């Protein structure tokens, strides 16, 4: 078995009496899409925040590229190569689409503390940004103000910015959220190809997408991972059917 790129070991996080994460151990292996599903309030967002570095676990560790990154913040983890997309688009809304992508390329390259040369004339950054926009199909909107993008296009831009980072692993929080059927299908096709570049830990509500894409699926319920397995295994798992897919299906 190949060494996992990203791993959580016994992550626990409580808010008062509520255990949002209860000894969660997950891993993400090279070349796979590992989907994380679970009903609302299962603790998916809390888990994502601890993996991305926005939140410190009470106990347990996060390992990335064989390194314990538990004590590192979001910025440091991003620099190591963790490419994150947000559930609610986190973009600079006053910027053009291209500027958002260039920001990503700038973060990846470094050299932010430069005060004189126009950043939007930097060929290397522009090439990298344009390439990412082309891959998600936003190249025609490069000059559009981000605030004027449709919801679906913003989701595409989120992914494009993550692409400019050329990350070692992707952490995607509901990239399909709010996409129409067509958009969702296109993104599914795109992510399918992306896994060869870097594995994806995918939190997603769109079950069709999850079962179509995921090499492995983990099911989170009340802060605990109750099952991890292939799509077929998860479908057949009685605990999952009871907890997540609905009692009536199990009956």
């Amino acid at each position, binding site marked *: 078995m190949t060494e996992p790129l990203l791993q959580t070991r016994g992550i626990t996080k409580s808010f008062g009496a509520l255990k949002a994460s209860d000894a969660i151990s997950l891993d993400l292996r090279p070349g796979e899409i590992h989907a994380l599903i679970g009903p609302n309030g299962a603790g998916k967002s809390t888990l994502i925040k601890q993996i*991305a570095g926005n939140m410190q676990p009470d106990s347990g560790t996060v390992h990335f590229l064989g390194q314990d990154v538990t004590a590192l*913040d*979001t*910025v*440091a983890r*991003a*620099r190591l190569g963790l490419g*994150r997309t*947000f559930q609610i688009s*986190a*973009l*600079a*809304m*006053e*910027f*053009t689409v*291209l*500027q*958002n992508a*260039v*920001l*990503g390329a*700038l*973060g*990846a390259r470094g*050299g*932010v*503390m*430069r*005060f*004189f*040369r*126009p*950043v*939007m*004339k*930097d060929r290397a950054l522009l090439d990298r940004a344009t390439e990412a926009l082309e891959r998600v199909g936003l190249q025609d909107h490069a*000059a559009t*103000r981000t605030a004027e993008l449709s919801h679906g296009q913003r989701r595409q831009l989120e992914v494009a*910015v993550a692409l*400019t*980072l050329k990350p070692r692993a992707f952490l995607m929080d509901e990239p399909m959220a709010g996409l129409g059927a067509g958009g969702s299908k296109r993104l599914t096709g795109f992510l399918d190809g992306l896994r060869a570049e870097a594995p994806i830990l995918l939190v997603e509500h769109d079950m069709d997408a999850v079962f179509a894409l995921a090499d492995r699926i983990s099911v989170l319920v009340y802060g605990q991972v109750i099952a991890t397995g292939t799509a077929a295994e998860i479908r057949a798992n009685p605990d999952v059917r009871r907890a997540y897919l609905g009692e009536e299906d199990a009956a």
Partner: protein
Amino acid sequence: MTRENYINAGLTFLLVLVPFWAWSTGQAYILTLCTKVAILALAGVGLNIALGLGGLVSFGHAAFFGIGGYAMGILASHAQTFDPIMEWPILIEGTKSMPVIWLVAMITSALAALLIGALSLRTSGVYFIMITLAFGQMLYYFTIGWPAYGGEDGLSIYVRNSFPGLNTLVPVQFLILSYVILGLALLFSARLSRAPFGLALTAARQNADRVETVGIAPYRLRLVAFVISGAITGLAGALFADLNRFISPTMFSWHTSGEIMIFVILGGVGRLYGPVAGAALFILLEHLLGGVSDYWKIFLGALLLAVVLFARGGLIGTLAGREVAHD
């Protein structure tokens, strides 16, 4: 060229035309007013980097304005009494040389901004406003209780400091000097806003999560912006002191912070020429309405209210329309 560029060019033309007319008709008072506009605009250019680009609502920029002023006052007062600032362990004497004074003013205000910024940037929103305000007021009360340099009464410098090759006491020469410095600061500010640093800083204002996620720490960006901002406002303080040949604790008071902020808001937050338009409008109102009533600031208040309510982009924003993303 965008519409904003035309407006900026027009404003530049006016700001050159008015003193030229005043000079050719021998109205020294107007020249002094124009110099004042340039210097106050410079203070605003400084604040605009923190406030406009970084979204940092600093209500304590009087601290840097005052430090610049006192740097000038201390150096020049020692030079005029031939009494060294310190003799041990090294001899430091006062100076009347503007370039040296400016350098000292910028370095000391940059250091103060580093310290104040490092502490206050750990907070945000209202807390940031309050902490920066507190630092400004701290220095204000400190200078009031500091008898060595005039305490509450302030300190007069009898002869304007010198600049190599110029007679700074001739109003038009000091005006040109102030204009050149403002021009350089505007040039720097324009380049900064388009540079990698400017992109990241403005992105951090819009969405800090985004910036962190691409591996850039917003705190560092903001701190550097705050230091640059403080240094420019400090330089303006030194020039302002030289214009009046007088320093006093008022330079540190929160009124000063408020006025610098008013220049930026009246003119247009985050607009390159915002502080210039704002300072010019402020001085124009002071000049025109100040003659009508001592309470002219009531009208200023009404205007500010109107700008905040109906013209969020300030003067420049209203005339130029929404900011065009530059490339």
